[in-house]
């Protein structure tokens, strides 16, 4: 079903632009046109349908649902909701405080917040179309595991000790209440017209936000594809040398992107022979460990906790990378 985009790229690159299929420029242009057109169409169609389905899901409902849940299942649920609930990263602080003041443990809240940037419908869509369903399933499982284990770890070291004092007080107050006093939202069924309106707004909103990332990401991917000499990556990094994984993680920190921008780069890196674990480590670090977001968390966490969360992410991405490089032959 995706051949139409290959044909479009064939026609535009070789006929309209009159580039030779054997030239580097032709190769890069073909990659760029095929991926951008494919991703744009997929995004517009799929975001709309996914938004239709989840129109009635919001962070308030998730909070009501998670409040009072047993810890064991709480991390799994927190991470799962993080993957499917839409919310803008600029809302992470209010969400953190909203969860906290409902008495939800810090670890469960962090499972939610850590998984959220790693997994979302746009990322899954891109992974499916560019790297196939096996890779997608793996990516989702790993992303959720990082969130779940991270949350569990933070609770086991009693991370709530290092919250800012007002947040710690809110948490204590929330946990002392036997039943949350926030009125539960009435769970009404949305009529189709409202779902359609929500889905339309979401599609335009998300597309308006991510289209530039797609161009940048695919552009970088195309440049890698066309201009990095064949076999260069394979020769120097192809054996999954152990140091290449933490190096990739560190390289990803100052690079700030969302999943949309980085996935086309992943595709290109893997095609060029970079081992799958190294690629994953690089991408997760780019997406989830970004300084701007961490500085925001300073409003609710003390430096010490912030540093712990940051280190925890770096270590877990490296472990993910090593494991995948070690087992990639079985994939």
């Amino acid at each position, binding site marked *: 079903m995706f051949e139409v985009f290959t044909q479009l790229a064939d026609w535009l690159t070789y006929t309209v632009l009159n580039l030779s299929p054997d030239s580097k420029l032709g190769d890069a242009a073909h990659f760029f046109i095929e991926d951008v057109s494919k991703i744009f169409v997929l995004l517009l169609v799929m975001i709309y349908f996914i938004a239709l389905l989840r129109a009635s899901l919001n*962070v*308030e409902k998730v909070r009501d649902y998670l409040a009072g849940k047993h810890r064991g299942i709480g991390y799994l649920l927190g991470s799962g909701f993080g993957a499917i609930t839409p919310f*803008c990263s*600029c809302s992470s602080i*209010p*969400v953190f*405080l909203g969860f906290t003041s409902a008495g939800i443990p810090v670890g469960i809240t962090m499972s939610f917040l850590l998984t959220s940037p790693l997994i979302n419908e746009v990322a899954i869509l891109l992974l499916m179309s560019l790297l196939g369903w096996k890779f997608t399933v793996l990516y989702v499982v790993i992303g959720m595991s990082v969130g779940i284990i991270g949350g569990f770890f933070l609770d086991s070291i009693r991370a709530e000790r290092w919250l800012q004092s007002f947040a710690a007080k809110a948490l204590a107050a929330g946990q002392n209440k036997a039943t949350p006093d926030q009125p539960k939202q009435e769970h009404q069924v949305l009529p189709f017209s409202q779902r359609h309106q929500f889905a339309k707004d979401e599609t335009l909103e998300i597309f308006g936000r991510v289209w530039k990332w797609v161009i940048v990401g695919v552009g970088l991917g195309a440049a890698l594809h066309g201009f990095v000499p064949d076999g260069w990556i394979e020769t120097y990094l192809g054996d999954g040398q152990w140091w290449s994984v933490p190096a990739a993680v560190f390289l990803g920190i100052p690079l700030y992107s969302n999943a949309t921008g980085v996935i086309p780069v992943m595709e290109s890196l893997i095609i060029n022979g970079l081992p799958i674990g190294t690629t994953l480590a690089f991408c997760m670090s780019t997406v989830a460990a970004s300084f701007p977001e961490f500085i*925001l968390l300073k409003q609710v966490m003390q430096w010490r906790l912030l540093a712990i969360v940051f280190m925890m992410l770096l270590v877990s991405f490296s472990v993910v990378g090593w494991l995948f490089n070690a087992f990639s032959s079985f994939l």
Partner: protein
Amino acid sequence: MKQIKVLGSGCSKCKKTAELIEQLAHEMGIPANVTKETDPQVMMAFGVMSTPAVAIDDQLVHSGSVPNAAQVKEWLTKG
């Protein structure tokens, strides 16, 4: 005079919301003092989790999106 607070961490949607309210209040000739509130403690006190949110005279009226013009007009004419 209405005291209108736009709650949010300063992202572009919050700015849009504040501008929209100011503009409509001006057009309708309703005196209003629109301020942007970025303090997370205040948001917590209002129980707001999705921004931008709007509070008029310390009553929360909206949360989670840029309101549309009809909604804003309704708030401005009420009370």
